[in-house]
């Protein structure tokens, strides 16, 4: 076939299209309109993912926690509540639980204050605001494992650049040994968690701030309210539902995270920074006791559930103000 005839055939097909009877194209269009087919199709990957990586492991963990399964002996023998009994008499478990709760509460509190302050700066109109917004979001885009390794260097017992700066300023002689002392190690974990969550929280809060109409701020200015009165009486109350959502995200991310603890301190010194996820990991993967590890991990569930329900209820109450 010569090129001109191909062209002719194509243009002929094009002009013939409007009156054409149902052809393949029309059938495709109909398929694209059938939501009953498309909806399950598009949902399928997510459903498979959630079943495979969330639901199955969750029930597996429940099953494991009532057996004596270990890495060396994968057979499931029923032992009733023995695992739960054991961990309730384990002082490290209680220390981990306490750390999990304390780290989460302090991290969320710090995150909300810093995110709110950062968001107020980000919504302000100034030169290079897009560059600043981009820079603020950067920590969030860094994989947490890499960021934690970077922090490990920052907090190194000998070569910590933070110590170096403090020494140069004459505020420190010798080394701080950030990760080697109980309270400093705990503070370090909290600081890194906060550093990681603040950008996301700030962007969430910023979106909430921008949804408050400018007229309301203007009206408050005219009504004689200065910065602090506007902040406490107008901005924060109107921003509360969004702050609650940011806090919920922060709480879940902190409470369920083991990466930061694992990379920075391995739970040390002497379990001072041990949290439930890391303790479950060390018990089951490093220690091979899958059953006890599962029982520890399951303790996260009711606590998270209570937290989520409490915050969602708070949000709903505020929405119906």
């Amino acid at each position, binding site marked *: 076939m010569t090129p001109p005839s191909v062209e002719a055939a194509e243009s002929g097909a094009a002009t013939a299209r409007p009156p054409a009877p149902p052809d393949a194209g029309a059938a495709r269009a109909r398929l694209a309109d059938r939501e009953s087919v498309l909806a399950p199709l598009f949902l399928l990957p997510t459903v498979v993912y959630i079943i495979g990586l969330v639901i199955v492991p969750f029930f597996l963990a429940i099953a494991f926690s009532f057996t004596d399964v270990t890495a060396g002996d994968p057979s499931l023998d029923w032992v009733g509540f023995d695992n739960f009994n054991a961990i309730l008499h384990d002082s490290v478990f209680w220390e981990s639980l306490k750390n999990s709760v304390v780290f989460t509460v302090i991290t969320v509190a710090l995150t909300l204050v810093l995110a709110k302050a950062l968001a107020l700066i980000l919504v302000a109109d100034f030169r290079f605001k897009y560059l600043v917004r981009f820079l603020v979001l950067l920590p969030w885009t860094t994989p947490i494992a890499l960021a934690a390794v970077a922090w490990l260097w920052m907090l190194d017992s000998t070569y910590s650049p933070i110590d170096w700066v403090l020494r140069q300023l004459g505020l420190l002689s010798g080394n701080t040994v950030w990760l080697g002392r109980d309270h400093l190690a705990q503070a370090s974990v909290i600081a890194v968690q906060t550093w990681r969550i603040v950008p996301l929280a700030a962007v969430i809060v910023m979106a909430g701030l921008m949804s408050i109409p400018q007229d309301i701020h203007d009206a408050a*200015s005219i009504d004689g309210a200065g910065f602090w009165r506007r902040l406490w009486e107008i901005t924060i109350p109107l921003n509360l539902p969004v702050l609650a959502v940011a806090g919920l995200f922060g709480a879940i991310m902190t409470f369920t995270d083991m990466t930061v603890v694992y990379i920075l301190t391995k739970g040390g010194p002497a379990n001072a920074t041990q949290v439930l996820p890391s303790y479950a990991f060390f018990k089951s993967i490093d220690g091979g006791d899958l059953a006890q590890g599962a029982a520890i991990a399951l303790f996260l569930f009711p606590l998270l559930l209570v937290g989520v329900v409490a915050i969602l209820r708070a949000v709903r109450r505020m929405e119906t103000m």
Partner: protein
Amino acid sequence: MALAVEVRGLKKHYRGGDIPAVDGVDIGTSEGEYLVLLGPSGCGKTTLLRTIAGLEEATEGEVLIGGNVVNGLPPRARQVAMVFQSYALYPHKTVMDNITFPLKAQKISKEERERSALWAAERLGIEQLLDRKPRHLSGGERQRVALARALVREPSVFLLDEPLSNLDAKLRTAARDELKEFQRRVGTTTIYVTHDQVEAMGLGDRIAVMYAGKVRQVGRPREVYEDPEDTFVATFLGSPPMNLVSRGDHLLGFRPESFLPEELVPGDGNRMVAELAVGRIEYLSGDRHVYGTVKGIGEETRVIARLPATVSTPIEIDETRRFAVHERDLRFFDADSGTRTTPRPVHA
């Protein structure tokens, strides 16, 4: 006596904008006056109001309130109250808390605040709504809460930014009456921004017509309507607007209601007669709007004649008929600048 509010040579240039939003405005309002800023969208009227309020900083020029220059002062130091187009009520506060909010900032005792709020609420007939949240109120009720919040501080000036535009047409008429009545009662100087000429005509003691950042004319409603200073004011006011017919170096203007069938315009030497080729007739609220092409007095131009319901002269589509305008109803504008110019003879 000092003017309640005065702006001198005011310019406002937004960052990033290539033309100024307000471009050299001089205007003043005397104590107790109701001044309306009227103009199409984007003419700078809201920017002017916001600059007076202190929500925008003037690029050039001065804002004076009660004779004192207030440039650089924050809104709260300016003794002004403002009602926004959206009302901008605080959604999380009750009506009572909304109204007392300005007093709270003045550190007035709770008792005193609530007494004042009750007083303001009674003036606006909303005392039964004090416990409600704004979202449980109708549009008209919200508007009154916004007014009460403005009133409670007993400001020296009210600034109203299109406060009626969010109300439906029926409510708007009632609310317009109430606003006028309210201002008469409290007697506070008011600057009112609107794009609606009916509101402007009905409410204003004086109207400042704005266009492209400039005040084109200031005057009593009757003055700006009957003696427009330029073709913009002539065609912006009036519905339908003033007819303009080009005649060489000038434009001839006449209102549709003064352009009537010849026999209805008495006098001989003091009227202008023209042929009107009738194209279309509309019946609106009893009046007849006759659309047609006018000939013999300048360039052939599409014009409108508005015949009141009392005129029963039969007029047919496609007929050509003699219409006339009394000389005192003729206005003349320069063809180049569009500004008012001296009367010319109209008899060829």
